[in-house]
């Protein structure tokens, strides 16, 4: 691990806190169970909410029967959409734009997804509320569900009053003629196709809300969110109340990753009911609801074409992108950012695209760490494919096309100015840390033993710290004060759902004020404290909040200097603050604790210089450049087990430029968390729906999150260059989840390259899908269900995985003799995990070491060929279809009339084979 090189900064004190791996302020509390998450909060008179939800994906509600439920002791109220409408609410996107289709907290006439809340029960306890829900009857007239993107393209619109299921669209159906010509006429035209599965953000803390109406126009909310300020603003607009009437508190939030950006149906229902019913109401989502009824993300498909010249330089590109918005997205979305950043770090002369979002009868689309991440995945995997096609090294193809510092300033093909990016420089540092030649040697040796190692690299840039371009994306406010005691407190507009902003902001303040880190306390998490800020959205808090904290602290330090200079009859320039002590240069006897100066500033107006505002307080709202770009290059090494389809990650190196690092532990934590989520997306996680629109991953046993055993130790190279913001930070919250997937996919593709290309990348790469590639046939069954998008593998790319070893010359005759001896029928028993399976095997040899034959058992018979006989050892593969698609690898020893050996059965391990001649 390389140490962070500190960027010199002009603070007032000698002790540097920016750049230090200090322990986090949050941790003592969180480690001892003293966090305050929303569900931990209890108010007097509080009642609990549970929802009766739609059991069908699409239909008309014909009857709702709640009378039995209402009679249950402990039930206080039951609301349907009709009753709840007494408190109107306008549900909006994260950008405060009203929804394109009307959304109500509870479904009124139509249910649009399985899990759509229909009835709300308010009861003494959650258990009673759930009991009551089970007594509610809802009848539907079922309509045909629209589940997939392909369904949406073909089906009638799900939302009344709309003409198609297109939620949002941008771009051109067909590329312009020039572009089409550039693509077709190029030396090499490559197409990459990605089918990205649906992901559940799955923060460990589920959504929760506790709403209490304090008066006719006063509402206090405890809510799982990404910014209390943003929620207060959103709710005030949604309810038409002044923002001052709404106080939002979220002291601790157990992760969010985009999910908790805005309140959605359930939270809004609780808010409306709290306004109507007048008692504090709490709803805490359980994991079943979280997985099946919460918003989700990522489901998309994209086809990218890119043309390259004979030197491997990019010439032109075109893409078609479609994403599933579900029924009620948090803002109808065609994900334009995919196209904006697809080629922004590359010298790509021409690009055009079509991008569409589709409504379906599934859970709504919400944000997730790097929502546009498809661009890096599809581009970087395409580049590796191009490198293999053209016979260029993957590092080299990037060197020829990346925008290095020497090429800047530049403007991307989408008009994005880039004058401050270093993906190429990150790549060079990365490559210097890895011995490719040695790896290629090891890889070649491993392949001889049928072990498949692969290395993958990827490079990218990412927009962070966005402010000023969208209504929600504002600057951040820091209010810093030196208390009369000399302790420093700050109210920040930032918010942590694990980010550790109370730590990093305190480091910025301690550094620039010249006080000890332990003497700084940062308050956040309450909309009644601090100014507006959108919180954690788009890797922005370190950049903007950090800049605000730094500048406010510098302003405050200046104020101390002016006062101390006046008190000691010195010049402000001669005053310094170090570790909480105010010094006058050349006069050590005049050194005073900051508290003493502060006390004078607050309590002794007579001693202040003329015009000096009493107290020691400063505030600064930082409006940074509209966006700050972060760059990185990553590398990973994998081993793919071609028998089981399992992938083992052996090594992972991150080389990133995130500007000034406030706390390396926090920065590495953010990248690592994103990378773990990337590993989940590539190998494990999937939220599938059946044809009727039922989400079929309802527990963490179906929805597989990465465990410690799935995630390797990450190595970090901090290749930082300060940005142009105050403090020089660059955002780092999302990057791991963006660059992780292509890095890992490229490593797997490299490992599997002897078997052919991954023609269509379908995520996750489950063991079965890995075997699709190994065997170049549809083992996973995905191809059959998605035949409309299936493409045939490129035949000439497929090489024999294991060429049969050349026959030693002197054994030719001997083997011919043996060959005759094994021909005929053999009775064998295969000891499978399900019990012994008897069968008759018929061998036929060709006299030159080749073996073919037939397997017969009660289940039927199956032929095989391509086997080898060598010195009494018979080896062959049997590709079976039942009970599942799997390749059985037989390795048998024949001695006289007796046969013994084993059969490798993919992920099920090996089974013993015994038998004798029939």
């Amino acid at each position, binding site marked *: 691990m390389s140490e962070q090189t500190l960027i010199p900064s002009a603070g007032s004190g000698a002790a540097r806190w920016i750049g230090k*791996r200090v*322990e*986090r302020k*949050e*941790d*003592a*509390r*969180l*480690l*001892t*169970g*003293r*966090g*305050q*998450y929303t*569900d*931990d909060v209890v108010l007097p008179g509080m009642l609990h909410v549970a929802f009766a939800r739609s059991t069908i994906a699409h239909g008309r509600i014909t009857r709702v029967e709640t009378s039995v439920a209402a009679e249950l002791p402990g039930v206080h109220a039951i609301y349907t959409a009709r009753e709840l409408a007494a408190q109107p609410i306008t549900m909006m996107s994260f950008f405060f734009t009203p929804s394109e289709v009307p959304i109500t907290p509870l479904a009124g006439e139509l249910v649009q997804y399985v899990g759509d809340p229909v009835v709300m029960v308010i009861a003494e306890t959650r*258990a009673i509320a759930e009991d009551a829900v089970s007594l509610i009857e809802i009848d539907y007239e079922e309509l045909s569900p629209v589940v997939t993107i392909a369904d949406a393209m073909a089906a009638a619109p799900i939302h009344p009053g709309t003409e198609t299921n297109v939620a949002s669209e941008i771009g051109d159906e067909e590329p312009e003629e020039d572009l089409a010509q550039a693509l077709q006429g190029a030396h090499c035209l490559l197409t990459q196709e990605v089918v990205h599965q649906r992901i559940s953000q*799955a*923060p*460990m*803390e*589920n959504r929760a809300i506790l709403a209490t109406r304090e008066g006719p126009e006063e509402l206090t909310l405890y809510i799982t969110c990404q910014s209390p300020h943003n929620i207060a603003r959103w709710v005030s607009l949604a309810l038409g109340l002044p923002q001052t009437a709404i106080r939002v508190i979220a002291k*601790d*939030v*157990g*992760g969010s*990753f985009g999910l908790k950006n805005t309140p959605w149906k359930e939270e809004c229902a609780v808010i409306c009911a709290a306004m109507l019913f007048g008692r504090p109401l709490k709803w805490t989502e*359980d*994991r079943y609801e979280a997985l099946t009824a919460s918003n989700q993300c990522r489901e998309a498909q994209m086809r990218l074409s890119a043309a390259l010249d004979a030197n491997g330089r990019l010439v032109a590109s075109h893409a078609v992108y479609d994403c599933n918005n579900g029924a009620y997205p948090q803002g109808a979305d065609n994900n334009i950012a995919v196209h904006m950043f697809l080629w922004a770090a590359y010298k790509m002369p021409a690009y055009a695209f079509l991008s569409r979002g589709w409504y379906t009868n599934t859970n709504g689309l919400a944000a997730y760490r790097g929502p546009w991440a498809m661009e890096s995945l599809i581009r970087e995997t395409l580049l590796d494919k191009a490198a293999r096609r053209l016979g260029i090294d993957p590092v080299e193809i990037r060197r020829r096309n990346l925008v290095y510092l020497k090429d800047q300033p530049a403007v991307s093909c989408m008009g994005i100015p880039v004058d401050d990016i270093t993906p190429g420089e990150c790549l060079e540092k990365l490559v210097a840390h890895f011995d490719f030649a040695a790896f290629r040697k090891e890889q070649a040796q491993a392949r001889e033993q049928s072990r498949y190692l692969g290395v993958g690299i990827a490079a990218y840039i990412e927009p962070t710290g966005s402010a000023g371009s969208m209504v929600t994306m504002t600057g951040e406010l820091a209010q810093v004060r030196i208390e009369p005691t000399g302790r420093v407190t700050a109210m920040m507009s930032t918010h*942590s*759902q*694990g*980010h*550790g902003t109370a730590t990093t902001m305190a480091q910025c303040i301690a550094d620039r004020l010249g006080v000890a880190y332990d003497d700084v306390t940062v308050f956040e998490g309450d909309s009644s404290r601090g100014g507006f800020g959108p919180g954690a959205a788009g890797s922005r808090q370190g950049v903007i909040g950090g800049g605000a904290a730094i500048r406010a602290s510098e302003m405050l330090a200046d104020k101390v200097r002016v006062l101390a200079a006046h008190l000691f009859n010195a010049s402000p320039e001669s005053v310094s603050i170090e570790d909480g002590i105010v010094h006058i240069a050349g006069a050590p006897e005049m050194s005073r604790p900051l508290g003493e100066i502060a006390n004078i500033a607050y309590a002794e107006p007579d001693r202040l210089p003329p015009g000096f505002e009493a107290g020691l307080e400063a505030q600064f709202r930082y409006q940074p450049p509209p966006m700050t770009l972060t760059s990185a290059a990553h590398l990973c090494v994998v081993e793919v087990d071609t028998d089981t389809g399992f992938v083992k990650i052996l090594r992972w190196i991150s080389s990133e430029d995130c500007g000034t690092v406030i706390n390396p*532990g*926090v920065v*590495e*934590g953010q990248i*690592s*968390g*994103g*990378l*773990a*989520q990337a590993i989940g997306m590539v190998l494990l996680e999937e939220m599938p729906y059946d044809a009727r629109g039922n989400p079929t991953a309802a*527990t*963490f*046993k179906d929805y597989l*999150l*990465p*465990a*410690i*055993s799935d*995630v390797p*130790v*990450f190595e970090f190279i901090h290749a930082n260059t300060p940005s142009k913001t105050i403090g020089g930070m660059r955002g780092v919250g999302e990057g*791991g989840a963006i660059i992780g997937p292509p890095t890992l996919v490229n490593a797997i593709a490299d490992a599997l390259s002897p078997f052919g290309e991954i023609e269509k990348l379908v995520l996750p790469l489950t063991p079965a899908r890995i075997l699709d590639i190994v065997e170049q046939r549809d083992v996973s069954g995905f191809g059959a269900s998605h035949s409309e998008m299936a493409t045939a593998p490129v035949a000439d790319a497929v090489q024999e995985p294991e060429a049969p070893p050349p026959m030693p010359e002197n054994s030719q005759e001997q083997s011919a003799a043996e060959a005759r001896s094994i021909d005929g029928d053999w009775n064998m028993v295969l000891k499978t995990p399900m019990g012994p399976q008897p069968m008759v095997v018929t061998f036929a040899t060709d006299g030159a070491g080749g073996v073919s034959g037939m397997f017969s058992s009660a289940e039927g018979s199956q032929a095989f060929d391509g086997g080898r006989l060598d010195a009494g050892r018979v080896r062959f593969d049997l590709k079976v279809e039942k009970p599942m698609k799997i390749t059985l690898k037989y390795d048998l020893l024949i001695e006289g009339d007796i046969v013994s050996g084993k059969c490798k059965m993919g992920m099920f391990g090996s089974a013993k084979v015994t038998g004798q001649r029939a």
Partner: protein
Amino acid sequence: MSEYRVEMKVNGRRVAEAVEARTSLGDFLRLKLGYTGVHMGCEHGVCGACTIMVDGRAVRSCLMLAVQAEGSEVLTVEGLADAQDALHPAQDAMRKAHGLQCGFCTPGVVMTLASLCADRRCDEQSMVAAMSGHICRCTGYQGIRRAITMLAAEVGSAGSDT
């Protein structure tokens, strides 16, 4: 609903309460006794966030009923350290190693590590293996791994002395 009276010791204090038969030990500790450091991440035994100790062994409190803890000694994360503001070595290692971000999975992680320490099974391998039963969505487990290494060195060597 059938109610039962249960008696147990929680964090060293005796409690006697009436509970419904269906109430999980986790809900009982959170809702009845206010030990909100017991976190419910899945309520079906996979995530490990709700891990506490019952009679010295790590237990998923979402999978155990309160009535099953009758007569037991229960320890939650609130009662793990010796003194009010002290940290148990497992908590201290997690803090030093940046083993947490949002802190939601953390009480469970800490309780499992602490129970392994108490059991003298605090070699690195056993602790990493036990950690595969905990889901952390934030950290990518890097800090947890480092905390385990620190803890194994510290408590492991202290243990072998005695």
